[in-house]
């Protein structure tokens, strides 16, 4: 579904990605693991066209997107939930939820999103986006892209800084949307969490993919993984 080949990206003079290669099949949940600064977030942003300069190939559903603008890439059916969550403070919860335009049929209805995240429903009427707790903001950031009909979701560290009970809720959500046929590319620091949702893991270092581990073989590769991640 998503085929990334020899992807390079730059911020000004700094060359961040040095030929990233990986792919995600339809219906898979795939994680990018790696230390801080390995280039995981930059990879996500590059897929979405959100870096000043990128080269190589990002082929989505058979179409090359490397020369497209971010809004055109979004219209092909990819949606991002950014690391900083990107909740708009000047918009109400409902406005935040309704902001991303529908890009394809088959997204979740607002009621289905409220069923996944009951807290959002309670907060929808009153609160402004930034008055929400960290967990609620994360639910809103995931919920709003489920509405759009985009079937390829880029989730950048959705569990960062959240309480264990909310991490579990997000884990359930990822399994639920996978069951509904969504494809997910997930950036995670917490590989214990990643192991509960993912099919495969790519390991990044210095702006490159250095290894791929099937989730089934994760136990057997623990030693290697600890070495990669330095934990």
């Amino acid at each position, binding site marked *: 579904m998503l085929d990334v080949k020899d992807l390079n990206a730059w911020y000004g003079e700094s060359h961040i990605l040095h030929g990233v290669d990986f792919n995600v099949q339809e219906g898979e949940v795939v994680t990018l693991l790696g230390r801080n600064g390995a280039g995981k977030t930059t990879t996500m942003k590059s897929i979405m066209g959100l870096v000043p300069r990128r080269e190589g190939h990002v082929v989505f559903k058979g179409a090359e997107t490397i020369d497209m*603008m971010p809004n055109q890439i*979004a219209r092909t059916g990819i949606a*991002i939930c950014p690391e900083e969550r*990107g909740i*708009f403070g*000047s918009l109400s919860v409902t406005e*935040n939820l*309704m*902001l991303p*335009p529908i890009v394809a049929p088959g997204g979740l209805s607002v009621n289905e999103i409220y069923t996944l995240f009951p807290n959002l429903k309670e907060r929808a009427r009153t609160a402004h986006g930034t008055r929400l707790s960290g967990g609620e903001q994360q639910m809103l950031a995931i919920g709003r892209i489920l509405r759009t009909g985009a079937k390829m979701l880029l989730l950048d560290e959705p569990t960062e800084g959240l309480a264990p009970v909310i991490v579990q809720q997000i884990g359930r959500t990822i399994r639920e949307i996978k069951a509904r046929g969504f494809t997910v590319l997930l950036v995670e620091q917490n590989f214990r969490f990643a192991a509960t949702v993912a099919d495969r893991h790519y390991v990044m270092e210095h702006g490159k993919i250095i290894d791929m581990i099937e989730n089934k073989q994760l136990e057997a590769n623990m030693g290697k993984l600890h070495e990669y991640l330095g934990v």
Partner: protein
Amino acid sequence: MQAILSYSFSFFGTNVTIAALLGQGTLGLINGAFYACLSLGLAVIFGMLNIINFAHGALFMMGAFASWMLLNYLGIGYFPSLILSPLLVGLFGIFLEKTIISRLYKLDHLYGLLLTFGLALVIQGLFRNYYGSSGLPYQIPHVLQGATYIGFMYMPNYRGWVVLAALFVCLATWAIIEKTSLGATLRAATENAPLVQAFGVNVPRLITLTYGGGIALAAFAGVLAAPIYSVNPNMGDNFINIVFAVVVIGGMGSIMGSIVTGFALGVIEGMTKVVYPQASATVVFVVMVIVLLTKPRGLFGKAA
């Protein structure tokens, strides 16, 4: 009522009656209407483009000229002009944004200010070259001639119309920005344009249309102003200095702030004419100094 109106007091040796205060305050609303329309457009443009649009006064003037031209070259009257002139000048604004202004978004604010200041000079110069600077007359439309007694003064009908029309357009603009999904997209793009674009919104086009909309507001004010002031290339100059003060007092980028502050400063300015006429030209700037000293982000500005 009459007793209240004729009550008078002395202020620094000036004899002030309540009737005069009310009268000048009401007339001040008319200037306030122009301040509100113009500062609203500036606020919308600043919020979205991060550009301080110094060409605003010149585009206001173009609105007045557009209605004069529509009347004298094509025989199109005042009321159609109220729609057509903002549309035409707004399109000209879109052309400017597409061809010139959009090249500056990655640079410092100062470049936008310099560029639009230069554009203002060019536009004014062109109009001065072709139409002179003495001013062209524009008749008040027939149905709005005359005056109406409103309890304490005779209000010229046209001026009453200006206040109501400007108030309506300002509130409609506010409602679009604060209450519609298009407005939500605009506000979101003001906060984090790249993310809004990554959701599939064509943000560059949104920016272009926002500039066109802000310019259309200025041109609308220009059409309203045409029958009151003579149509001349420098008519925007008198307003624009005060309008920048209004934007600063209201809070950069605040929508309701520009509307309320625009009207309020018109009234304050009018009343000052009664109480202490010498200060009427500077009172706006005195208010600006006081506001900046006490609330540096302006009355309606948000904390950083």
